[in-house]
């Protein structure tokens, strides 16, 4: 039997959060963490977590699994169970609503701050705007972000200043638009980022890179933004 320890907190019932232990029979199979949670919810319907696509593309079920942020649906038990124990907590650094569900408003607010949409003042052609394969290739590793918040909630700088530091996810998206040959707002975007917090709170700790379930590299994108700032300012 696998010992599963889960963070529990229901604001209507509990005065403070606690860890609850469950015994779980894996029947020897290497299933995903989400499967475990789904089965435990049958036993205890009060257990609450978010989930949607169950294939790692929607970004709903980001949580802290045995100490590392990840998506429950694509995390097999074999990669996280240590000494027959699995510990599941909500993503750290943001307020908990209930059990494994966190309030992500602050995370989304940072995303919105970087103006995550194409800005192009030139009149649109009758067909698509042309973009070479090389220009398009610059967006690979950026547009795939699923906003699961695993990276930003693993980032100490984001823990301390979630209202001021954009965080790895938002910065990855900021660079996605800076790098897009079709976007014309580069200057305005950069000048919105040139303060001591938005970008520069990144100290290159690289937790974001370590946890990203899509294998993306926000630190590298942040480096590119810094280079662009340097080029325009010097």
């Amino acid at each position, binding site marked *: 039997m696998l010992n599963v320890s889960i963070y529990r907190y229901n604001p209507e019932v509990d005065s403070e959060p606690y860890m609850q232990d469950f015994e779980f029979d894996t029947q020897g199979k290497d299933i995903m963490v989400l499967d475990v949670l789904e089965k435990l919810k049958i036993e205890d319907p009060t257990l609450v977590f978010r989930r949607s696509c169950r294939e790692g593309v929607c970004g709903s079920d980001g949580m802290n699994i045995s100490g590392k942020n990840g998506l429950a649906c694509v995390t097999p038990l074999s990669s996280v169970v240590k000494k027959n124990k699995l510990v599941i907590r909500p993503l750290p650094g943001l307020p908990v609503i209930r059990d494994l569900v966190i309030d992500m408003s602050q995370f989304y607010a940072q995303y919105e701050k970087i103006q995550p949409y194409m800005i*192009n003042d030139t009149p649109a052609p009758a067909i*698509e705007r042309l973009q070479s394969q090389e220009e398009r290739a610059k967006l690979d590793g950026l*547009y795939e972000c699923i906003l699961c918040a695993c990276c930003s909630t693993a980032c100490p700088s984001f823990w301390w200043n979630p209202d001021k530091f954009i965080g790895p996810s938002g910065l990855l998206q900021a660079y996605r638009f800076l790098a897009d040959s079709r976007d014309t707002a580069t200057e305005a975007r950069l000048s919105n980022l040139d303060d001591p917090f938005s970008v520069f709170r990144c100290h290159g700790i690289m937790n974001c890179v370590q946890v990203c379930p899509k294998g993306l590299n926000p630190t590298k994108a942040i480096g590119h933004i810094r280079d662009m700032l340097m080029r325009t300012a010097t």
Partner: protein
Amino acid sequence: MANIRTMTFDAVIVGGGGSGMRAALQLAQSGYKTAVITKVFPTRSHTVSAQGGITCAIASDDPNDQWQWHMYDTVKGADFIGDQEAIEYMCQTGPEAIFELEHMGLPFSRTEEGRIYQRPFGGQSKDFGKGGQAARTCAAADRTGHALLHTLYQGNLKNETTFLNEWFAVDIVKNSDNAVVGVVALNIETGETVYVKSKATVFATGGAGRIYASTTNAHICTGDGIGMALRAGFPVQDIEMWQFHPTGIHGAGTLVTEGCRGEGGYLVNKDGERFMERYAPNAKDLAGRDVVARSMVLEILEGRGCGPDGDHVYLKLDHLGEETLNAKLPGILELSRTFAHADPVKEPIPVVPTCHYMMGGIPTNVNGQALTVDGEGNDQVIEGFYACGEAACVSVHGANRLGGNSLLDLVVFGRASGMFIEQQLREGVELKDASEADIEAAMAGLNELNDSTGGENASVLRAELQTIMQNYFGVFRRGDFMQEGIAKLAALRPRIKNVALSDKSNAFNTSRIEALELQNLFEVAEATAITAEARTESRGAHAREDFQERDDVNWLCHSLFFPADKRVGKRDVNFTLKTREAFEPQIRTY
């Protein structure tokens, strides 16, 4: 109890997926007070899982491509019960809608000329079936749905749409004229129930693939809009038509895009034979999805399946080479390694036909207006009520949807609904206010659930429902089996109505949501079952062992399921095109 808060909007859209956000974008740009009610944060909607692309004749791969050819393919793919007026509108308007998305920033893959990359998909042809395989599916690698959904969300952020994120629509509020004047919705985070009042209520609630045990659909695809419409007494159309995608990963159900076969992959049985050559000599692995899925099931039933239990076949990709796979199908490599423990660069992916798409839904016209029929069989618009996307049956997919047409459906009809509602609002819409009793009626189901004591666990009941649907209403169907299935469903109804809700708390109570979703699933399942049993022919995705032929004399029509008396009626298919004469039904071969 009906003393609940009222929020008032000009238009409210239920569902934050592709079609809902496309409709919302249109309305937000028009300046009307618009809200999107969505039970998950918008980018968690199931559109995100679409992989291969969005089919549209933008003439990038072939400069001479014509939207009329796409229209022909779609009509044929639909096995001739798609409304040709709607298909014409979709294929003709499509390019405009695609270019809009590109201008909004959708990161399409590119050709050497810098245009949008298009790949071949099943059922595509040039020159009305005479010019060979076409490549018409516009793609952003194999993450087109993700790219599309995020782009639409970003567009809505830019236009400052109001989002009611993590709100669940419970039931429709109708006024004394039987017009729809909003919904009762539940704020999942706080548990507050609110009457969301609106002059136009758009259902963009997506599909209900979760009625089956094995599905490519997300957990959230529970047919909430269909459930609400049926409870409100409105009919649904062609609900027996369920697409089984040929390539769901065996065991896990996760989708493997048709784009794999478009890029040159093919299916093999246990003997290593490329068996589709036998079933569809011309199109082979790129025949219609219904054809490929049935062929696979036949291979398995005839003992040529792969694996120790012979219960799947293989999708072979390794011959395409690592470089191509990394460039064109990176998401598939990731999914296969995670869920099938197979690396497509070296070994084939075990796949099996898996429930994928609901062709049926709320009947609408091309403006998204929901329809019912009167006593004489004439179409009647339901005032205030609209639907688009998978929840709607406009009907462009008829009895079988072509790959890549769902995303086009979303954007074209999301946009069309938005534009039409904008025009309606501009002309001035007057709907009678809902009375206290009307709102009370929409609260009844929720109140009953909240007051429940005892009952059975929602997960257990859901599993039972899914097993019935899987066993009795799968790829191949038979009258006597289906009658058995219908009887089982009838026995399940009171148990699901009495589902347990032991957790009565308000804060983020997902048990309550799951119980409500289960009731919606049941409504869809029952409508599917009864209509499938009634359609005594084989057409598109609806394949019956006891009626193996298509019956154009009796069934060249839509089915309509009326919930009040569980009656199956018929509705004419539209054959009036604006730009040319209609495509007459012909024998469908690939």
